[in-house]
């Protein structure tokens, strides 16, 4: 396969399709669900479930078409990143099931997303009050009791957690330890179907941005699920090499999801940059590429840098996705894309607000919202620092004990 930047016809069509969806279905209600933080965006959820999802899968697992999945994420987050995260789809929980589940588990948990019932959501619950990036420090426990696992603990910052824990058909993939003494080797992922007794939606976070997204706190209190809802094997491996398909599989989910998150970030950054360029064009300001660097205006210099940063982030994202399509390990490249995109769009959206002056800061435009939305991309799914740590270990060929 040669170096090629050509989109396939299918990718072009898909891109246009999702762009239209973003412009027509998301943008008109963007401000409303930013203002009304915890309201369910009925128009979007119902429209997507009845019409939108027929256009193609929003989040596919590893396999073909990851570049296309990234393009879809970019387009829809160009529309609205908060609404995108509130979309009824299998989400990160679905990615975990797709990556590590058995055929039976995939059938049991994922078919609802192709079914004719009501809207359903999938979510992943990892973070706890005292375990964020350090997911090996998880305190939530899972104990086998006969034919059931019993979960106890508290999970926070669960994206999509309201829909996934309450709407029938959906599920939350919960990370819990079966043996605290085994460290990360004891950590396993469990599928908890929506409405399972003992799983309680405690509340939703009030956030800087992506306010249409339901970021939930979930409590597990003697929550019982079938033994067959464990993803991967129950075997506990000890020592540094510890972990089996459970922890490693869940970590591998990130290799699949980080390019998508990076693509989402690029979508938000592009929204702000597009808006800035439109406002400038309206004001008669032309961006010149045929000029010596020392002769550029400050505006041109910033704009070209913003464009270059955004495109670098997009290409790093597509590279990580393309590698996945070919079944090549992309742990390094996925973290590179995520680190680059998260930081780039944080800066790009901040610059866009700056260059638009009071209008950029005002709620007349959506740029201020995009700046707030953008920041999460440098935090969730692995902070900037965690991704740098992963990249550093890879390029230095260091284990996690050699570079902590």
């Amino acid at each position, binding site marked *: *396969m*040669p*170096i*090629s*930047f*050509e*989109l*396939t016809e299918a*990718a072009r069509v898909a891109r246009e399709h999702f762009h239209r969806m973003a412009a027509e279905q998301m943008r008109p209600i963007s401000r409303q669900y930013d203002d009304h933080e915890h309201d369910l965006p009925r128009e979007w959820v119902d429209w997507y479930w009845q019409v939108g999802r027929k256009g193609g899968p929003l989040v596919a697992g590893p396999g073909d078409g990851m*570049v296309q999945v990234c393009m879809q994420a970019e387009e829809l987050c160009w529309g609205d990143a908060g609404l995108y995260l509130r979309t009824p789809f299998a989400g990160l929980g679905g990615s975990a099931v797709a990556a590590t589940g058995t055929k039976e588990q995939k059938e049991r948990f994922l078919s609802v997303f192709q079914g004719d019932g009501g809207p359903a959501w999938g979510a992943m619950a990892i973070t706890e009050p005292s375990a964020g990036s350090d997911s090996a420090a998880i305190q939530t426990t899972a104990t086998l009791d006969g034919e059931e696992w019993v979960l106890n603990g508290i999970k926070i910052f669960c994206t999509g957690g309201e829909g996934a824990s309450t709407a029938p058909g959906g599920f939350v993939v919960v990370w819990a330890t079966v043996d605290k003494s085994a460290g990360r080797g004891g950590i396993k992922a469990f599928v908890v179907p929506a409405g399972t007794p003992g799983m309680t939606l405690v509340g939703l976070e009030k956030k800087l941005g992506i306010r249409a997204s339901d970021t939930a706190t979930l409590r597990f209190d003697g929550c019982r699920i079938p033994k067959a809802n464990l993803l991967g094997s129950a075997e506990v491996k000890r020592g540094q090499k510890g972990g089996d398909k459970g922890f490693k599989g869940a970590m591998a989910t990130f290799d699949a999801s980080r390019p998508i998150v990076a693509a989402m970030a690029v979508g938000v950054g592009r929204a702000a940059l597009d808006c800035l360029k439109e406002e400038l064009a309206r004001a008669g300001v032309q961006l010149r*590429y*045929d*000029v*010596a*660097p*020392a*002769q550029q205006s400050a505006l041109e210099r910033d704009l*070209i*840098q913003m*464009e*270059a*940063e955004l*495109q*670098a*982030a997009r*290409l*790093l994202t*597509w*590279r990580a996705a*393309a590698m996945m*399509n070919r079944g090549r390990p992309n742990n390094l*490249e996925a973290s*590179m894309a995520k*680190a*680059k995109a998260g930081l780039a769009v944080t800066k790009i959206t901040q610059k866009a607000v700056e260059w638009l002056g009071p209008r950029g800061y005002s709620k007349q435009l959506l740029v201020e919202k995009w700046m707030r939305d953008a920041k999460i991309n440098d935090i969730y799914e692995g902070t900037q*620092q965690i991704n*740098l*740590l992963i*990249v*550093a*270990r890879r*390029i*230095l060929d*260091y284990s996690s004990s*050699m*570079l902590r």
Partner: protein
Amino acid sequence: MPIDFTPTDEQALVVETVRQFAENEIRPRARAADEAHKPADEAIQAAHALGLVANGLPSEHGGGGERSAVLGALVAEELAWGDLATALAILSPALVAYPVADQGSSAQQKSFLPRYTRDAFVPGALALLEPGFGADAFRPRTQARREGASFVLDGRKCMVPWLAGGDTVLVSADAGGTPQLFLVPRDAQGLVATPDFYMGIQALPTVELALSGVRVPAEARLGGERGADLARLIARGRVALAALGVGVARAAFEVARDYAKEREAFGSKIAQKQAIAFLLAQMAIEIDGARLLTWEAAWQLDQGETALREATLAIDQVRRIALDVADGAVQVFGGHGYIREYLPELALRNARGFASFEALALV
């Protein structure tokens, strides 16, 4: 063709050949050449035998007929990884040959191309940059005045590669309101070349040119009567420079990474400290991002586009990241980074140049 970022087997083979060449022939000579302000002639001659420029020239004029901007970018990165000044010298024949191949009249191609495909190395020269504040390579101040069957050139140029043995310099000038290019003999009457010296690329001989009443025949205008497109040429220059900058950055990154894994402080390798490890991680990310931007612009060129926007995004990114990476490498080396014995010092001087360079090489 779907999106992909893997060189073909054929490209990978060329890259590996040039990488080894850079490691064995260029890098070992780089420091001495820089100190002596003299080109590494053995390396340049040996590189010429690889046909890196000639392979891209049309076969009817003796070339290999395999021009590809993507391959050109791949090669440029490897050469500059060895040494930037030597890479510029090796690629200098393209400064005349590629514009003639791309935009020259058939008479110009017949007359100028064969010399760059022969066994003897013939350097090229391109005079775009001008001294003085406000200078802009897209809008030359040098004037070309039509006088009957001649053009008369007046003006000043700087940072013009001027390796021994060259016979032609391609000069940009404003011809009645549009920028044009002229094939000028290096020994033309009224043309005075004065050596000039820069902070970096010291192993590449460069000159300032004073042109006063330099008379060339009308046929010396690149493209003949229809003329040439300067922006197209600069776009190709920006892609080449971006690739070279990525090579400079990668070289600096690699030595910094290796040094950090050797150097001990406070009981561990400094690479085991996040302050150093994160800096190295950022370097690696920025280098890869800049390389992909460069490849995208090169790929656009190969599709027949002018690709000025893509080329500009690539070089814009490289101007920043090459400097940042080289500076970071000096920092990782600490006091040793400031010492001329080690690569980061040279990388930092070279990297700063990309803010000033325009079309010092072409793909």
